[in-house]
């Protein structure tokens, strides 16, 4: 197996990991909501894509155009309706962490339950862009390449947006000190809702993209959420570049191990890598102080 194959496979897989985690890092990093129901909001757009693609003959790319604003709107609404009462009540203090874990855990079950009722527990899958793309003699599936491209574009783009623009600084200000943000004229609730919604748009995007090549079922959301959590923490909470880098690292590690050591150890190595990174850098690759 040549090295370029490994590199490409690692990059596409890592791109997938990074992309799936980006929305969560925004949601947790800024709005300080540990959203356990995150994975369900990845699977729901996947189902949307499935229905529109197999039922109505839409192109998944068209679904993407629908899913992005829809994902934003849904998560924005979730924040405004379900989470602001908690934020108010706890004054964004440590109790918020506990309350949001419990509330989003509940939401997880509700959304998953609804999907189970509608779609049953079956696996779903459809075929799209499953065609080889040749890059310097190595082949990679177009749909997976698309994910990598999306991850790079969104990751780098949002990272620049967050670090280079005033709006980004505002969002980060809410992340680090929500209590003091109003002192400089920042509307905390709106900003947090915005970040939460943006996270929703991102996760919807990854849901649609994932549905192009991974079979999914209503029960699978938590798997994605857990993976995303690992990537978020490894990259450093709230840091999109961290997400991308951590995702890619995990992807490369997994592919290298699968190719040269033993595919049976891929996930073990992934977790081990994650643990080692934390032991060396207790706040993740790009993280600042823990809170």
């Amino acid at each position: 197996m040549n090295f370029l194959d490994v590199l490409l496979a690692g990059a596409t897989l890592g791109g997938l990991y990074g992309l799936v985690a980006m929305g969560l890092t925004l949601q947790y990093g800024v709005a300080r909501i540990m959203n356990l129901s995150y994975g369900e909001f990845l699977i729901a757009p996947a189902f949307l894509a499935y229905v529109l693609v197999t039922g109505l003959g839409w192109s998944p790319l068209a679904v993407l155009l629908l899913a992005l604003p829809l994902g934003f709107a849904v998560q924005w609404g979730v924040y405004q309706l379900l989470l602001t009462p908690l934020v108010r009540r706890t004054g964004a203090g440590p109790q918020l962490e506990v309350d949001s874990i419990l509330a989003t855990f509940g939401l997880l079950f509700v959304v998953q339950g609804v999907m189970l009722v509608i779609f049953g527990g079956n696996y779903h899958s459809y075929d799209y862009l499953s065609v080889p793309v040749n890059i310097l003699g190595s082949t990679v599936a177009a749909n997976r390449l698309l994910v990598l491209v999306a991850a790079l574009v969104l990751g780098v783009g949002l990272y620049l947006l967050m670090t280079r623009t005033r709006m980004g600084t505002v969002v980060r200000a809410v992340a680090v000190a929500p209590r003091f943000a109003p002192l400089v004229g920042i509307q905390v609730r709106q900003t947090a809702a915005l970040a939460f919604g943006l996270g929703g748009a991102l996760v919807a995007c990854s849901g649609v993209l994932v549905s192009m090549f991974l079979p999914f079922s209503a029960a699978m959301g938590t798997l994605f959420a857990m993976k995303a959590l690992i990537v978020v923490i490894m990259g450093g909470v709230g840091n999109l570049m961290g997400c991308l880098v951590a995702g890619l690292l995990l992807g490369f590690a997994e592919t290298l191990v699968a190719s040269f050591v033993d595919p049976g150890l891929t996930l073990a190595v992934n977790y081990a890598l994650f643990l080692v990174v934390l032991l060396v850098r207790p706040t993740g690759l790009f993280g600042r102080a823990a809170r």
Partner: protein
Amino acid sequence: MLEVRNVSVRYGQHEALHGVSLDVAPGEIVVMLGANGAGKSSFLKALGGMVKAEPGARATLGGADLMQLPAHRIVEAGLALVPEGRGVFGDLTVRENLQLGAHPARARAGEAQMRERVFQLFPKLAQRLNQAVRTMSGGEQQMVAVGRALMSQPEILLLDEPSLGLSPLMCKELFAALARIRSLGVGVLLVEQNARQSLAIADRGYLIETGRLVGAGSARDLQNDPAVRRAYLGAAAVH
């Protein structure tokens, strides 16, 4: 002109502030003196929107009633607060903190100019633009807090013990700077334990005790008032 009427603050059962009223005119420095726990910080926080005042309070600034505004609109209306404990964005850099200070629309136009002013006032900040504020010394953080408030180009600046933790030299420079800020037409409301230095630059002063205003007067009168001397200027001042 900031006109404050009848501000009360309650923490649960305990009323920390009872119907305080006062005025701050443009271009004047007003100092608020009071023992610890008297309610000075609560008063400033109520004006800055960090705690809710009891109904019936009014605080007009340029036609707007600050008490009716959501917290984030207050700074837009022209009132900036440097809260107790500084309230800086610790994980952000000095540059970003100052940039955020200029976030209100009112402050965008003159941002670059104001930044230069702040740097003149606190040259240290210009050298440490990319340091995370969390890692700065106590006094340095105080500079960031004041600098950030100035960045919003307020009409009224509220400062809660700004000299806390500043070295004597910095302290002098800060008070000198406040005098300069006043000359720009900004009204300054200052809560200070350092009564000697603050009265020296202030125009007027108020005394507050257990949540009530108990005295007011020109800075000179207060300086000479024996009761004030005893309580706030201390024995050390009488030599």
